[in-house]
């Protein structure tokens, strides 16, 4: 383990120790029934954070194969929650079997062997075509467009988007060879820090809701305060990334904004389906999708923007005039 990784792990451990101490003090002080319930939920969240941080750190240290397997399992559990809440018909049954047991493992196999070209198009091209092909064989036309779209969305959000996180480990970056685990750590830390700080700012001084019908607890104060603090902290972590301090800050801002909208979008879907939480698997947090909702849209955006600006070129080069216009 290099010293920079040790420092990152120490930082996360330190934050969790401080959070646990604060949670303990608050639980001693809480007087009213409502306050006690809030603090109990806060402490359940902190305990879950310990577990999640430990599992994530351990797998990252164990290397890309373990990380890929961890995210494959996460995709499986997330898609399970997504499809359970979504209305599907008998005619979707065989398609769903393919989505869970063939498309998902094949896609993560591509991540595991690092076949970048096929990884980017497997779900948007091949699975996109296969799902309506298989559904049409059932002969059922009722809900055809709705069902195929739901399954395609499930795969895009829960599998395709999530898999960009382990794929960060395979991203060839200038002067950063063999250090990608820290970049993945930076990304996940930024998103989760932003979630936590938005929650803390929102709970302490949140007043004006951003989108009361979609997500009643998201406030302007929480969002601006949370994102501002996160960008500040993440730009101080520039030494762990291929970025300079101001680049790290801009990247963190991009991640936070994508995470904010990702959280809102998944919340809108959830409410459209008539649920409050995606599931009940993680104490205090809800389901797996409730925890990773803000990672979903941020991961592919972060992956491709980092690759475009700092990569050594996994994709074919853009037309010459665009490079000229960009000054590269």
């Amino acid at each position: 383990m290099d010293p920079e990784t040790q420092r990152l792990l120490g930082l996360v451990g330190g934050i969790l120790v401080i959070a646990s101490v604060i949670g303990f003090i608050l639980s001693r002080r809480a007087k009213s029934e409502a306050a006690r319930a809030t603090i109990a939920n806060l402490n359940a969240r902190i305990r879950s954070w310990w577990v999640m941080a430990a599992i994530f750190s351990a797998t990252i240290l164990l290397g890309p194969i373990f990380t890929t397997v961890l995210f494959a399992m996460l995709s499986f559990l997330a898609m399970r929650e997504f499809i359970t809440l979504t209305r599907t018909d008998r005619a979707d049954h065989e398609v769903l079997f393919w989505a869970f047991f063939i498309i998902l493992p094949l896609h993560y196999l591509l991540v595991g062997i690092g076949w970048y070209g096929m990884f980017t198009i497997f779900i948007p091209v091949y699975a996109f075509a296969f799902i309506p092909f298989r559904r049409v064989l059932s002969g059922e036309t009722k809900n055809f467009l709705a069902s195929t779209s739901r399954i395609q969305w499930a795969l895009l959000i829960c599998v395709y988007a999530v898999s960009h996180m382990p794929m960060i480990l395979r991203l060839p970056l200038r002067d950063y060879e063999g250090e990608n685990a820290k970049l993945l750590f930076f990304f996940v830390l930024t998103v989760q820090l932003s979630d936590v700080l938005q929650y803390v700012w929102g709970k302490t001084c949140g007043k004006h809701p951003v989108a009361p019908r979609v997500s009643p607890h998201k406030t302007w104060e929480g969002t601006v305060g949370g994102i501002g603090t996160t960008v500040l902290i993440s730009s101080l972590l520039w030494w762990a990334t291929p970025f300079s301090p101001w680049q790290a800050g801009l990247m963190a801002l991009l991640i936070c904004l994508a995470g904010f909208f990702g959280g809102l979008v998944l919340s809108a879907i959830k409410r459209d389906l008539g649920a409050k939480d995606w599931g009940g698997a993680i104490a205090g947090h809800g389901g797996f999708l409730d925890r990773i909702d803000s990672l979903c849209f941020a991961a592919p955006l972060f992956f491709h923007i980092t690759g475009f600006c700092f990569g050594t070129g996994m994709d074919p080069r853009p037309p010459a005039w665009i490079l000229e216009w960009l000054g590269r």
Partner: protein
Amino acid sequence: MRAFLAALVRLATGVRLLPEAPHGNGPAIFFANHASHMDFVVVWAALPNALRDLTSPAAAEDYWGATKLRRRIACELFRAVLIPRRDVNRSNHPVERLGTALEAGRSVILFPEGTRSLDGETSEFKSGLYHLARRYPDIPLIPVHLENLSRILPKGSRLPVPLIAQARFLAPMRLEPEEPKPVFLQRARSALEEMDPH
């Protein structure tokens, strides 16, 4: 061994373990809507360990008794009561066989529809539940609403889809004195149907 198997079933189906028996002590009759082969395993796995050891699911004899392996799984692993669905006579009558288990102090799990429904809707109840309720008026009847089982393993498919199942144990009910059979069966069925989201 059984507790471990039940934990595996809960992990695979997402069903939650009940913290305590829904009716207090003593035997109970659990009845549920029937949508898949896995139904009795799911209800069985959701019961608290102590109660599960004292519970026998009812299983169709024409399926679970058809081969030696299936019979061993049903009778030895789940300690199921095998129930004939055809050629019923006095000596193999389902009510008799379930009654033997209840009199031995065991609880039973049964599916009053008799067969798996094709569309996830609950069909008409057969009369076995009524005869059991009349014979054992002191044993509570507990409706269990199973959700998503028809989407996990629908009739006519061998491929399971890993959705999250739910087993909701509802308030215990009893046969009212002088309650006619059709009224009681309708009441039992609507206890399950009230849980349907549509």
